[in-house]
């Protein structure tokens, strides 16, 4: 394998290497110094992330089974950053006694899901796509069930694994139809051979349902809330941000590069589901008391907004989706980071328990405030820019009514985000969460998130770079 090939595939290779190194460390390392695995992983992963940004030529390997374009490399890099943040945020949680026995397993699983996502993004063939998808899901189920002593965690695990198996079965059935009508599973060939027939549309919808499950689009979203609530906070943030982001990336790639022929069909599909997703997600979020569940529904509705970027099928939409995901990663990870920090130290996860938080923990409250405002799309935070571009992309194709629905939904979402803000800043509490100082990794990760929330919007260069890359998928 030449250096050029290595560079093209460096994300997957490096991640695999990192996973193996951690595995080696687990096997051969000093059993008493298990916590040093944390440091090892963070260092390794940072290296991977940085190397990921090295410039490299786009290319196609394995006879077209593996494709790397600038856009896809960028997507991987974005995921790497997000995963790195999750890893850093996990450190303090993993350092707790009940988890110290299986730290490296956690990392191995997390990295393997990331490998799966990377392969999925670089897929040039549906087989690679499928394998990546499964690789991204199966270990994730184990991660969701990571907390062995929690009923909820186990429940989350079983719900995730069974439903994802179910959904990938349906997705596969749809793929067989695509295969049967085109005779190939290579992406670049399918798009030439596909015609707008009923069976293709049917196949597409089965495929869509499977993808929608991963992205948690209504009505395929019902697992998300339970799994997010049950899983440990860091896993939840990983699932709701990185997994979902990766699924969205590949979704965009597949829609734009494979199914342009049936664009009318998938536009209608997305229209319907986007409206449902935003609305249902928001309506459920209103009533939530558990912050994890709350953020789960919030991220469901966020997925609805992202669909607005996809629906136009235009380059601007592509760019806006990727850009929004960058924003979304920072914002949601900041929110989850705060929830995790408090949950790990105080074990409190409900909104009521956050009453008066600002009085005791102003720093965390402010981070949460920024994160929520960014998610709600309030300027000058990045979420505003992200949403604006998504809506612009949809409006460019004339979907004004959809944009209006989305905008009205942002009001509902603002309402429940403000409920949390209200709890932290306005409500008084007899027994607020006591003042505490979170450890360095948490603060570091939150710092990066805040910087991301603030800078990503103003620095137009980020959007422009994404926009420039979104020519070729």
């Amino acid at each position, binding site marked *: 394998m030449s250096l050029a090939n290595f560079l093209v595939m460096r994300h997957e290779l490096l991640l695999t290497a990192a996973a193996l190194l951690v595995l080696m460390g687990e096997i051969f390392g000093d*059993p008493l110094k298990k916590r040093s695995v944390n440091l090892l992983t963070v260092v390794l992963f940072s290296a991977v992330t940085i190397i990921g940004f090295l410039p490299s030529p786009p290319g196609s390997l394995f006879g077209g089974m593996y494709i790397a374009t600038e856009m896809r490399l960028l997507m991987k890099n974005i995921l790497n950053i997000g995963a790195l943040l999750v890893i850093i945020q996990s450190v303090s949680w993993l350092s707790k006694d009940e988890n*110290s*026995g299986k730290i490296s397993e956690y990392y191995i699983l997390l990295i393997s899901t990331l490998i*799966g996502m990377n392969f999925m993004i670089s897929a040039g063939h549906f087989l690679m796509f499928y394998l990546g998808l499964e690789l991204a899901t199966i270990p994730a189920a*184990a991660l969701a069930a990571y907390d062995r002593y929690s009923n909820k965690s186990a429940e989350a695990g079983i719900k995730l694994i069974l439903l994802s198996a179910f959904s990938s079965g349906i997705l596969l059935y749809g793929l067989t139809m695509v295969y049967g009508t085109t005779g190939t599973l290579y992406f670049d060939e399918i798009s030439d051979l596909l015609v707008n027939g009923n069976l293709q549309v049917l196949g597409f919808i089965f495929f869509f349902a499977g993808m929608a499950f991963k992205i948690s689009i209504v009505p395929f979203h019902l697992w998300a809330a339970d799994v997010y609530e049950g899983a440990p906070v860091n896993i939840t943030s990983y699932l709701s941000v990185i997994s979902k982001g990766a699924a969205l990336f590949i979704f965009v790639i597949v829609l734009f590069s494979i199914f342009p022929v049936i664009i009318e069909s998938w536009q209608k599909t997305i229209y319907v589901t986007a409206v449902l997703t935003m609305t249902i997600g928001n309506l459920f979020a209103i009533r939530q008391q558990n912050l994890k569940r709350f953020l789960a529904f919030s991220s469901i509705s966020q997925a609805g907004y992202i669909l607005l970027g996809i629906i136009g099928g235009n380059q601007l939409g592509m760019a806006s989706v990727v850009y929004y995901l960058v924003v979304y990663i920072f914002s949601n990870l900041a929110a989850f980071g705060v929830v995790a920090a408090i949950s790990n130290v105080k074990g409190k996860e409900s909104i009521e328990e956050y009453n008066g938080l600002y009085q005791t923990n102003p720093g965390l409250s402010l981070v949460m405030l920024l994160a929520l405002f960014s998610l709600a799309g309030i300027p000058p935070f990045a979420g505003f820019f992200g949403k604006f571009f998504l809506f612009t992309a949809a409006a460019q194709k004339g979907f004004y009514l959809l944009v209006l629905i989305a905008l009205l939904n942002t009001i509902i979402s603002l309402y429940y985000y403000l409920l949390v803000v209200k709890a932290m800043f306005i409500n008084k509490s007899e027994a607020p969460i006591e003042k505490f100082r979170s450890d360095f990794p948490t603060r570091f990760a939150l710092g990066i998130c805040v910087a991301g929330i603030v800078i990503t919007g103003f620095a137009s260069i980020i959007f422009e770079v994404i926009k420039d890359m979104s020519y070729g998928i």
Partner: protein
Amino acid sequence: MTINQVMFVLFSVMIIVFSVLTVTSRRILRAAVYLLFVLVSTAGLYFMLNFQFLAAVQLTLYAGGIVVLIIFSILLTSHISQKFEPVGWKKSLFSALAAMAGAIITIITILDFKFSATAEAAREIDMRLIGKSLLSVEYDGYVLPFEVISILLIAAMVAAIVIAKKGGPKKTETQTL
């Protein structure tokens, strides 16, 4: 009626009957055995379609591996003699409606479609070709998926272990890997 047709009818009837039995049987172990029958019948279909290798894989991996795994887990978690309560009529009715609606629409759509075969010559599939393709990095070569599924299997192993493993500081001596 050719032998092929007879075989097909036989296998398909077996598949359908045992599939239905698998999902309706009220004794769990019987359901597992019915599943085994379905898988074996399917392997028969694969033979009919000239995919001997895959039929073999089906028999060993599926019938031999997964079903055994399932049966073990049944033994771990259930009493053999236990009989399920019947499914609530509402649940089964709606599920059946959904499934039947889906099936009807799918079948109609399939029958509606004019499939067109490729004009290229068929390739004779033998084990060597499969092996070659599996290790090929060229077009229609599957070495990359092969590598990925190996990662997947390792990850699945680790995953299973994580779930089974007890955490906590005291358990550090029980190295499982």
